[in-house]
């Protein structure tokens, strides 16, 4: 009982500020403090009129999409490799892919900045994507590793012994097994990239992502427009999470049914 109350308190601590954000996104005036002076949709209207915001949004979506796909492909290759490799090699793969999670974003940001400056690489969307891949790789690898620990290479070998080529084996045996994990890792990566701010600031050059745009808004006057942006993202995140968990559940149900019918 005490545990349940405690959990409820913690969850409300997490959620309350979000409710404040949503509430003020409907504020009738430009102020972000109390007293609350009535409801209005003006900040949502302002969202659609702001061309710079639109650009930043597109940049962020593009970056997040490419990051998610690239991390997914790289992470998948690495985790399949991890499956095939022996102890020491596994450790090496883990060391280069998982270590970034143990470093502050600042460290990754400045070391990338130094490297890119040394090689005179100009900063832009590409460097933002590179940075985001470095940050998301550990999360994909950790998720994949947990999944693959339950995976048996024998399945693949059996499939090949039955005469299937490796591509066929991959498509029909390996991929279905790791697919749910890949999808949820990709969703995570997308969300991380969309909200990343600290590292991005070092490698963005003249590009403006959504968080960078919000940051630059804070340099002038902060209006409930940032709350409106945040509310839209919140709803989008909710939708993505619900869809991905729905997909996962249907898949699980499907595979259960398939197993039962055998």
């Amino acid at each position, binding site marked *: 009982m005490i545990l349940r109350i405690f*959990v409820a308190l913690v969850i409300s601590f997490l959620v309350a500020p979000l409710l*404040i*954000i949503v509430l003020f996104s409907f504020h009738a005036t430009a102020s972000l403090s109390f007293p609350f002076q009535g409801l209005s949709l003006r900040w949502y209207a302002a969202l659609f009129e702001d061309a710079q915001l639109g650009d930043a949004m597109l940049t962020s979506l593009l970056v997040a999409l490419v990051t998610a796909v690239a991390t997914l492909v790289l992470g998948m290759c690495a985790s399949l490799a991890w499956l095939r490799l022996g102890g020491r090699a596994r450790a090496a793969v883990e060391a*280069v892919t998982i270590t970034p999670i*143990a470093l502050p974003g*600042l460290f990754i940001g*400045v070391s990338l900045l130094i490297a890119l400056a040394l090689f005179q690489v100009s900063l832009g969307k590409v460097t933002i994507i590179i940075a985001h891949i470095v940050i998301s790789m550990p999360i994909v690898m950790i998720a994949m590793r947990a999944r693959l620990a339950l995976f048996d290479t024998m399945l693949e070998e059996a499939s090949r012994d039955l005469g299937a080529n490796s591509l066929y084996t991959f498509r029909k045996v390996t991929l279905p097994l790791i697919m749910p994990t890949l999808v949820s890792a990709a969703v995570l990566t997308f969300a991380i990239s969309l909200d990343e701010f600290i590292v991005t600031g070092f490698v963005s050059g003249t590009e403006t992502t959504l968080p960078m745009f919000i940051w630059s808004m804070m340099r002038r006057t902060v209006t409930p427009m940032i709350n409106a942006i945040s509310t839209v993202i919140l709803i989008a995140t909710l939708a993505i999470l619900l869809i991905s968990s729905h997909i996962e559940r249907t898949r699980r149900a499907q595979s259960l049914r398939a197993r039962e019918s055998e």
Partner: protein
Amino acid sequence: MKLSARWSGWTLASPTILFMLAFFVFPSLFLLVYSFWKASSFQITPAFQFDNYVRALTDELFWRVTFNAVIIGLMSAVVCMAMALPVGYYLVFVSRSRLLEQIILVTWFSSYLVRIFAWRTLLGNDGVINTVLQSLGLIDAPIEALLYSRFAVGVTLIHLYLPYCIILVMTAFHEIRQDLIDASRDLGRSQVGAFFSVVVPNASAGLVGAFMLTLIMTMGDFVTPQMLGGTTGQTTGLLIADQFRRTGNWPLGSAQAVIMFLLVVLIFVAVIVAGRTLGFIPKRRKQRAV
């Protein structure tokens, strides 16, 4: 067969390994190299000298802001863990509520900057907390210490990184088999007893990892202290970031980053030693990374 598996393994791994070498390992090494270079008024020359380290380590400023960062980080990470352990336990062993998990994920992914700013709305003189307390007649004048203080920074950092911490704790708990807990309950232990005798030792590696990762995040976050810390907002992270963005003394900034990294390692070792002495971490158990 064995040989071909290894060969295909390396082929599959190579793009990722090359990518991470190029954009993570080498840059980190460059940072290390850079920390020995020489900088004087807007000019940087390759060198091998320890001046940057000497300067950083003998500088009162560096220690002052680092102390600030460590205090802020430790306090936030400890509170995060204190909140995440029961919640994680509840979600893994008691309820398994998907809804609560989703809520936690949503808070994690709601905009970092906007959440920081929301806390200004909550903690300011006209903020929610002061307004509520005043209308209840509990206080006469707004409590000014709520905002632009270390308290404000701590609360906000906890809010920012608690979801992350809960997810890490849950991952650690998932590795424990339910039957271990059932067995311990069968032996007559209470829920709390089972928690400390079975759950914590068996999940210790993961829990230490969760604490350390949360600490690294809260200690390294330089935006929150800057926005909410008032006159106490200077941390090592900000000092380092400013060497790169404003002062242009990259070698000194690199040296400070390396020192900060070593400090994190030191804290990690201290946590392990403390955990072993207190008996939360079983001795002679192979530590696994998170």
